[in-house]
């Protein structure tokens, strides 16, 4: 048989070339104006990128993000499992939690947690409803800007994670649960071994987005002087008046963090694609058993 290679010429696309030229020129112009702009103080920006106070703020931002996400995820799983419960009180409690914390602005919650001492001057462990107290603290000593920020961010995140986890659990084929129950697994074994690992495929991508969003949401903590990146940058520019330069410094670090997080997200997602994969990859794999002539 003769070979008939497809070596066809594509039709010209002048519209696309024009658009690319315009976009390219615009980018060059943008870079030029930014680089030569005397008001941006590049020397200051570079000097402050590695400043000890900035790096300290960066560390607080990372801590707040990671801790809030871990606690938020735990709260989210707990709430999502409560939502699946047969008990109306548990379901109601879970619904109340997500309703309230998704219904009020995070900014308000943060300020509220910071001022919790105005509502509850003392915090104690003991018998509730006026019983004896074992330990007691002054709320103002206990709730530092950091703990207030962590409380606000984590509890708010938990309400959103609950919805993400719930969607993940619902995405798992009910037959999976039945197959596990038929083997004699208990409720918690079904959840741990069968449902949650499969739900992760649906849970992980939006959780990655939440993580990246959280990196930047921590900047809201600056309203209660949380000592994270933006607060630190603000403190410095209040002293030296390099407002724009320090905002650029903070932005550069935020971009670095989100870029690293995006790369991490890619690898975590791949890990949870085990046994699935994209459609073309799956088709190729499914055909493999037949390619060798064996069934």
């Amino acid at each position: 048989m003769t070979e008939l290679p497809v070596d066809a010429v594509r039709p010209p696309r002048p519209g696309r070339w024009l658009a690319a030229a315009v976009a390219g020129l615009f980018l060059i112009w943008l870079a030029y104006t930014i680089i030569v702009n005397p008001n941006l103080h590049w020397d200051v920006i570079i000097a402050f990128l590695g400043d000890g106070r900035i790096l300290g703020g960066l560390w607080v931002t990372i801590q707040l993000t990671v801790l809030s996400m871990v606690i938020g995820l735990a709260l989210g799983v707990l709430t999502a499992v409560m939502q699946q419960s047969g008990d109306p009180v548990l379901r109601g409690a879970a619904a109340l939690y997500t309703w309230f914390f998704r219904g009020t602005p995070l900014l308000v919650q943060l300020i509220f947690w910071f001022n919790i001492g105005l509502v509850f001057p003392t915090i104690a462990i003991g018998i509730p409803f006026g019983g004896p107290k074992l330990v007691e603290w002054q709320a103002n000593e206990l709730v530092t800007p950091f703990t207030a920020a962590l409380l606000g961010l984590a509890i708010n995140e938990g309400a959103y994670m609950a919805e993400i986890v719930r969607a993940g659990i619902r995405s798992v084929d009910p037959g999976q649960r039945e197959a596990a129950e038929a083997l004699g697994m208990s409720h918690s074994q079904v959840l741990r071994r069968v449902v949650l690992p499969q739900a992760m495929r649906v849970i992980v991508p939006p959780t990655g987005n939440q993580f990246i969003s959280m990196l930047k949401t921590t900047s809201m903590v600056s309203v209660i002087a949380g000592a994270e990146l933006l607060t630190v940058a603000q403190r410095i520019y209040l002293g030296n008046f390099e407002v724009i330069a320090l905002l650029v410094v903070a932005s550069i670090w935020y971009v670095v963090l989100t870029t690293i997080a995006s790369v991490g997200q890619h690898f975590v997602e791949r890990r949870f694609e085990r046994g699935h994969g994209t459609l073309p990859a799956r088709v190729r794999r499914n055909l493999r058993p037949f390619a060798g002539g064996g069934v």
Partner: protein
Amino acid sequence: MDRPMVEIRSVRKRFGALEVLKGVSLDVPEGGVVCVVGPSGSGKSTLLRCVNRLETIDAGRIKVDGELIGFEERDGRLRHLPPARLNRQRQNIGMVFQRFHLFPHRTALENVMEGPLIVGGVSREEARRQAEELLDRVGMAERAGHYPGQLSGGQQQRVAIARSLAMRPKVMLFDEPTSALDPELVQEVLAVMRDLAASGMTMMVVTHEMGFAREVGDHLVFIDDGVIVEQGDPREVLADPRNERFRAFLGRVL
């Protein structure tokens, strides 16, 4: 007299206003193979699912190996079994589903190991040894490391049978095990089931495979509209169906 492995007595089950089982009684003797046939929506799958309590019955009694399933009788009253004891009962009852329901995030070998490892309290080495043996028995030893998504339907169903067998059940329930398969893959699954029956396993099989029922079944039950309409030796019943609806049903499937 030997008591039957599965005893179903006057079982009723309704979903809302719809009564799916209207008093069904059936015995499966130890080592026996009972095939349950009937039109879709007749209640045959529901009956099977009641035996391992995936569905809760509304009336009647089901016993497996003499033990009441899902309930206990105390002080003359029936009580629901606590979950832990129900789970223990289910370990004795293997179930094979129409759509396999293998765990997609685990390999064939891990699927078969899962039950003994997590529920049976067997060591990892022992579970692996046993799983390899079972995969070999269903002809899937070479694909032990494959994920379900990499296997054909027939291969997945054979792994699913091995997964159930790993719990060393006293009885195996098959819920239309070949209905989701491409026609050319049906025989490999039926062959495994034939071997299983020959090894003396007690089996209750909901199926449309009349050939299998005739060849392997000891007893054939035709269910229609929630009641057993006709039953008996498969060869006799299939050769000379008496009931009008059974005859019409056979006319459609054969």
